[in-house]
């Protein structure tokens, strides 16, 4: 039973950064912007969070630094892709390259240092409950943040007028402009929210998952987060399912390797990516659902005609 519980705990820890980054990108894409720079913003978030926590000794300051760093980098994307209407795909890709390079430079002096880990929640009695105690009441704080954030995004998108406006912009930015909605303002805010979430996801990696700084430590998680948004067909509750499925596959392949299955480890490590492709093929079968949920103006630059 203990093994079972610890497997579940590691799955939650592996899934949390995916969920955080994906829920941010979901909001960005719902507004009609495709920011492929998630990996870059995540890795910058990771290094800044680690550095700030290491220097201050307080992991919470690290969390804030990660959020701010991700948001600042996304602001750069916003200036280029929104104000200057550059190609969003190219801009996003270069943002990732910039993030990886910049994080290597910032983190040079922090490689191999022991960092400050964000402590897990520990509520007397509750956390010690058998079976579910550790799972429900004893995880790291960002786990709770990720779940709460997903619920909040769900409520925001489908229950508030502002969320409705955001979805409308993603569906047709020209019509939104004609109705007098400030398209660029909404998109800037969405992009920065996405950046902050990616930065927070990075902070989780360097403060909880493996509390140290290793160059390029995001290891493609930003890309999985991007795929998750499509996987979830832009619906928040499905992002949770997707993130946990991928977390489970990642952890599962580690355990499979440990148990000595005669399968090459490279094949097992590629499972999450294969799963992405399979799922993308499966969901594209229902065209009606896809068209209804896909933001129709995704990745199209918007220049208001004045």
């Amino acid at each position, binding site marked *: 039973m203990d093994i079972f519980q610890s497997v579940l705990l590691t799955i939650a820890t592996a899934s949390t950064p995916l969920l955080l980054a994906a829920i941010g990108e979901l909001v960005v894409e719902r507004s009609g912007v495709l920011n492929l720079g998630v990996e870059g913003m995540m890795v910058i978030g990771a290094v800044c969070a680690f550095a700030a926590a290491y220097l201050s000794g307080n992991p919470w300051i690290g969390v804030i630094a990660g959020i701010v760093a991700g948001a600042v980098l996304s602001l750069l994307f916003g200036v280029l892709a929104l104000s200057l209407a550059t190609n969003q795909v190219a801009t996003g890709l270069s943002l990732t390259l910039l993030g990886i390079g910049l994080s290597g430079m910032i983190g040079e002096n922090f490689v191999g240092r022991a960092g400050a880990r964000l402590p897990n929640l520990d509520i007397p009695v509750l956390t010690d409950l058998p079976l579910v105690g550790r799972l429900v009441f004893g995880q790291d704080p960002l786990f709770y943040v990720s779940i709460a954030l997903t619920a909040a995004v769900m409520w925001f998108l489908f229950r508030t007028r502002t969320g409705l406006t955001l979805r409308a912009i993603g569906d047709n930015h020209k019509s939104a402009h*004609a109705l007098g909605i400030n398209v660029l303002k909404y998109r800037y805010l969405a992009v920065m929210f996405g950046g902050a979430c990616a930065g927070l996801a990075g902070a989780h990696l360097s403060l909880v998952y493996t509390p140290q700084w290793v160059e390029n430590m995001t290891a493609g998680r930003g890309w999985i987060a991007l795929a998750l948004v499509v996987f979830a067909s832009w619906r928040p509750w499905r992002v949770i399912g997707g993130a946990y499925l991928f977390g489970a596959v990642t952890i599962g392949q580690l355990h499979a390797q440990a148990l000595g299955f005669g399968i090459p480890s490279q094949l097992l490590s590629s499972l999450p990516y294969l799963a992405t492709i399979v799922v993308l093929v499966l969901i594209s079968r229902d*065209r009606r659902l896809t068209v209804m949920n896909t933001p129709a103006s995704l990745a199209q630059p918007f220049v208001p005609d004045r």
Partner: protein
Amino acid sequence: MQSGSEGTPLLKTVGLTKVFGEVKACNGIDLSIAPGEIHALLGENGAGKSTLVKMMFGVLDPSEGEILWKGQPVRIGSPGEARRLGIGMVFQHFSLFEALTAAENIALVLEEKTPISKIAETARKLSVDYGLPLDPNSMVGDLSVGERQRIEIIRCLLQKPDLIILDEPTSVLTPQEANKMFETLERLKAEGKSILYISHRLDEVKRLCDTATVLRHGKVVGHCVPREETASSLANMMVGSDVETVKREGAVPEFGKPLIEIRNLERPPATPFSIPLRGIDLTVRAGEIVGIAGVAGNGQGEFFEAVSGEATQKRADIVSLNGQDCGDKGISGRRILGVGFVPEERLGHGAVPSLPLSENMLLSRHRTDAKSMLGPFGFVRNAAVRSASKRVIGEMDVRKTAEDPEAAALSGGNLQKYLIGRELDRQPAVMIVDQPTWGVDAGAAARIRKALIALARSGSAVLVISQDLDELFEISDSIAVMHDGRLSEPVPIAEATYEKIGLLMGGAEPGHMAFEGVKEEAGA
């Protein structure tokens, strides 16, 4: 200036000007709209009507001049500000969101924090009240164009505007739907609201509007009372010279053997928003022009794709062109049989906007004219392509600014002449055109219609899909109507009347009871 006194216009523009680059889209427009009147804004495509109302609605900033609202000069910086002043607008190309419900679409422009369910209820009540029934919970993407327009109008009314701007509202409606809308407008007028009605349909304007302002090339050429004018005097004001109407000369020609044969064409909807085709049969003979009328979005686009080979059929014998079964062939395969196609969308479908005309020529003819345009190993013979391009430009009188300009640099009318000429240049035995003169000025339109008639007289079969009924009556030998993915029997032109075609456009069956009276077109 006192505000609110008798005789103060609701809205007045003084010297309103908008410059795009070198072009003055609007040049010193003076216009005034009195409270409680229906004011027509007349003009050809490209006369500056849309630019003018976009300035009134805050979508565009004027370059010069000012707008007076109830006597006070105002700067309308955004549609939101226009709405707060009391100006509402129903757009020509709808500003609706397809992935949202009707109620959500309406909620977007209402600032107060009323819950969607309440908005849905108000909208439903108001829509029934004005005879424009709609279901607030339906997804806009699933609705017909007429229903979408209802949403636009209801959305506009819920903002309680003093002035309602309607940009070519009837261009997507059947004559019967249009009649219904006129009743709504009369009622709004009786409630004291002003309406700015943009149209180039003179009959409507004469019937509905109290005053009119006529625009030509961005300038006001006259103010008049439409009821005191004749349709032709209004047309002359719009065009600036006597309108040339195309006439089919000589006796009714003899038609030859069938060159287009479509047998029970079926097509499931390709996207959630498209119309399925249901059992379409059609024959067009040599020398004949058949027109296909219909309200936009009733399957015309899907039909064109199926006939042109953009969407292929399962069996070859469903579509037969120039005497050969070709239902399983793609576009090039059908073109090689001697068929020419011109799609509805000029830029992006008919032509690549960023490529020069000559390369656009090659794109549609690299298979049919492979012998002359391609050399060994498939290398392009640029000289041959350019000379063909030049020939078309000369033949169709395409006005251009450069030797071989990009397609996007041409005006709509000139590009359309080029695209039609590109196909005619091959002397196709079969020609299929979707919306040949949509958004094209009168001169170019006349030229295109003449060319199509000449092609038919030389013994080709011509199929024209158009929303412009006048055009179809002008050039067709018979007119079939598309409604909800079905095609009616072609009506010979001698028996066709506007009323008859209009009823078919609304979905009535000839010989049916409903066909005799006006069919009630109810939505939800």
